[in-house]
């Protein structure tokens, strides 16, 4: 047993994962050598149509065998039909022992539980949510889940930590030769950002679409040079689950209060000036922060440079009103964002690699001034946990949390101090996702708590009259007073989840919950 730099105990060897590298700081590990690549293919003019009749035919043609790794993107979110369809077909073909390598899973994928129980899927590298997360937490899989950030995933592929045998790419539009795009068709999802790495690095790429366009299709996100096969199905997803309606700013007073404080912190920071860039996602509090920032930007005559990450119609409005110059979109959250990325050249589709990979020549997160994030808990060292819940269950993916925190100049976690009786500030988080080294402030309904490491921010805030500053000691004392002492989580010794930092080192592990 060894301890990483945060004092988390990591075994020398983790069954089903291998020999872990110890996390040694947010920017400590540097790459060596060359990137790995996909199998070289050759297609000549004897093949001018890559279409196959159905998913099963494509699985057979791809050469997928038991024990291999299959990948999927999550742009169809909770409306996705493709993951279940493909794994069902694998089961029917007698393929098992698969490693599932999705960019994320959603509630709709709970159907996979039967395939986990029957051994079709024996390993998952990616987020496990809801019922699958509960199953894994209670010891329902032999092999631990590996959790990677949106940037850590393309890094792992490029560095050869993960090899994708077959990538199944759901495409809202494709032609018969596999030029695909996400902005048109009944299943339009906007950006296809998370699919790029899989298309580039998989040995075989199967495009699955419900919208065949005449060759050559346009616009193109991912081109024909990557596609091996194209399958037309009746439907790749349920539009109602793929994108939400227009995203509206919350009217919940608690969220608005926290958002107001976060916005005041941003305004007090040195980054609130012409050219500011920010990422706020689609959650209630972050979106409300954007609304308050918008007011402040108009009042002080400030214009931003770009908005990054998952894009909502609220960001689209900022673009239209000239309050930001560009949007860099790895994932389009709602209808307004899908329409905008289709029509507006200032709304740019970016890949996960471009967005967040720490091992390239500079990801977009590096250019970020401010990011607003959430967390289930934060400890007095400002370490944040987004993967496990209060009861110790592994229920959430890492998303872009690590990447944006490491990239942005000002990383704010905005979160109610209490969810019911459960406090979001503890002495030591149950599992670490993102180290306090890259988190600058926590904002709760009790005020703004700045990481003492950021003396410059503390000074800047001290100059602004009426900012509700609360020290970490005060905040943590308040949490304890209101919540009372916590009982420990009861676990087995076996590790069921390995949380990687974006550079591939292990920042923490998650243990199996004891049966109640």
């Amino acid at each position, binding site marked *: 047993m060894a301890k990483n730099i945060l004092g988390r105990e990591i075994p020398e060897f983790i069954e089903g994962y291998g020999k872990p590298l110890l996390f040694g700081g947010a920017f400590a590990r540097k790459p060596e050598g060359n990137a790995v690549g996909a199998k070289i293919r050759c297609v000549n003019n004897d093949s001018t149509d890559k279409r196959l009749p159905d998913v099963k035919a494509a699985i057979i043609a791809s050469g997928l065998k038991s024990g291999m790794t299959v990948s999927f993107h999550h742009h169809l979110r909770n409306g996705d039909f493709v993951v279940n369809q493909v794994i069902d077909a694998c089961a029917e073909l007698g393929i098992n022992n698969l490693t599932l390598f999705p960019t994320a899973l959603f509630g709709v994928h709970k159907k996979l539980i039967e395939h986990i129980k029957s051994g079709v899927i024996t390993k998952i590298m990616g987020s496990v949510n809801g019922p699958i997360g509960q199953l894994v937490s209670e010891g329902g899989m032999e092999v631990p889940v590996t959790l990677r950030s949106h940037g850590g995933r393309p890094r792992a592929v490029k560095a050869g930590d993960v090899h994708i045998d077959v990538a199944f790419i759901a495409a809202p539009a494709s032609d018969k030769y596999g030029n695909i795009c996400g902005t048109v068709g009944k299943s339009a999802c906007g950006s296809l950002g998370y699919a790029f790495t899989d298309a580039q690095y998989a040995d075989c790429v199967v495009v699955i679409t419900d919208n065949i366009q005449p060759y050559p299709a346009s616009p193109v996100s991912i081109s024909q040079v990557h596609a091996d096969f194209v399958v037309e199905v009746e439907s790749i997803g349920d539009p109602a689950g793929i994108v939400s309606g227009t995203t509206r700013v919350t*009217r919940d*007073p608690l969220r*608005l209060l926290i958002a107001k404080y976060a916005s005041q912190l941003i305004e007090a920071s040195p980054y609130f000036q012409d050219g500011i860039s920010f990422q706020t996602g689609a959650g209630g509090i972050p979106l409300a922060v954007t609304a308050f920032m918008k007011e402040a930007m108009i009042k002080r005559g400030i214009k931003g440079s770009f908005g990054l990450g998952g894009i909502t119609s609220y960001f689209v409005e900022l673009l239209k009103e000239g309050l930001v110059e560009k949007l860099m979109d790895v994932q389009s959250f709602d209808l307004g964002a899908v329409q905008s990325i289709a029509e507006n050249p200032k709304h740019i589709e970016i890949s996960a690699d471009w967005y967040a990979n720490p091992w390239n020549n500079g990801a977009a997160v590096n250019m970020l001034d401010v990011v607003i994030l959430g967390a289930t808990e934060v400890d007095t060292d400002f370490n944040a946990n987004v993967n496990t819940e209060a009861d110790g269950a592994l229920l959430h993916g890492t998303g872009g949390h690590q990447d944006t925190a490491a990239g942005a100049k000002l990383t704010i976690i905005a979160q109610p101090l209490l969810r019911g009786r459960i406090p979001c500030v503890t002495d030591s988080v149950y599992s670490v996702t993102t180290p306090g080294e890259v988190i600058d402030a926590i904002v709760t309904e009790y005020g703004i708590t700045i990481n003492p490491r950021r003396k410059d921010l503390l000074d800047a805030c001290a100059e602004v009259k009426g900012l509700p500053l609360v020290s970490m000691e005060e905040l943590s004392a308040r949490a304890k007073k209101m919540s009372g002492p916590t009982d420990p989580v009861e676990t087995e010794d076996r590790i069921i989840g390995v949380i990687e930092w974006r550079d591939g080192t292990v920042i923490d592990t998650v243990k199996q919950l004891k049966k109640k």
Partner: protein
Amino acid sequence: MRRTMLYLPGNNPNMLVRGYLFGSDGLILDLEDAVAVAEKENARILVSHFLRQGEFGDCEVTVRINGLDTEYWKDDLAAIVPHKSLQGVRVPKVEDAGMVKILDEELSHVEEKNGIPVGRTKIFCLLETAQGVWNAYDVAKASPRVAAIIPGGEDLVADLKTSRSPEGTELEWARRMMVFAARAAGVDALDTVFPRVTDDEGLRREAAFIKQLGFDGKSVIHPNQIPIIHDVFNPTEKEIESALKIVAAAKEAAARGLGAVSVDGRMVDVPVVKRAEYVLLKAGITEVE
């Protein structure tokens, strides 16, 4: 300062825990209309626990008790008055000075029994009938405990045999009456609630209107209404600047033994200085160089 007093339903722990965080000047823990008959006892116990152990920040803490025509009001007082954090009771449907006197006596009785200085608990009177509004001045003068009078909204409008309009035409006279009675009696005039919680612009208009009438503040039913009303009631930068000048000039004049002075070509006498001091008080400025 009573720019905003926020109602918190007395049987809702979520709001009782967090209500004070939203920055209103006062809180009204509600045992009356916000609590169903079957829940009166539960709410009373919950509110009394909060008064004993809860947090309220810098807010003025009051409880709206059940009406004097109900079987609950004495139990309400017995449960809440002993707690130090309670500063006043808001009593519904006050019709005349006699009712205030009955409440005053019962308060004194409970205060005495619990070893609390008699007279500590203030009274906020809701005038929700035509008769109550008509008697506003007498009500305000009925006890030194009376801190404010507040016109009713829905109930008053029903009693007037009309309905509530967006412009508030039907409440206009009652509001003017309230300011006159309050000023004559030396208590605060606080306005009724604005019921349409998502109509931010409507609220802003109404707040500006009642501020101009002379009200000290307004009752609030949703936290999102607080910053809008404060925005209206807070003095503008220009008002603060002018008030600072006036108060400074008056100070200087007093130091030199002069009476009236002039600021920017305008006579500054006692009422003007008083109003300037009030502006600075509202702006949270206590010391003038």
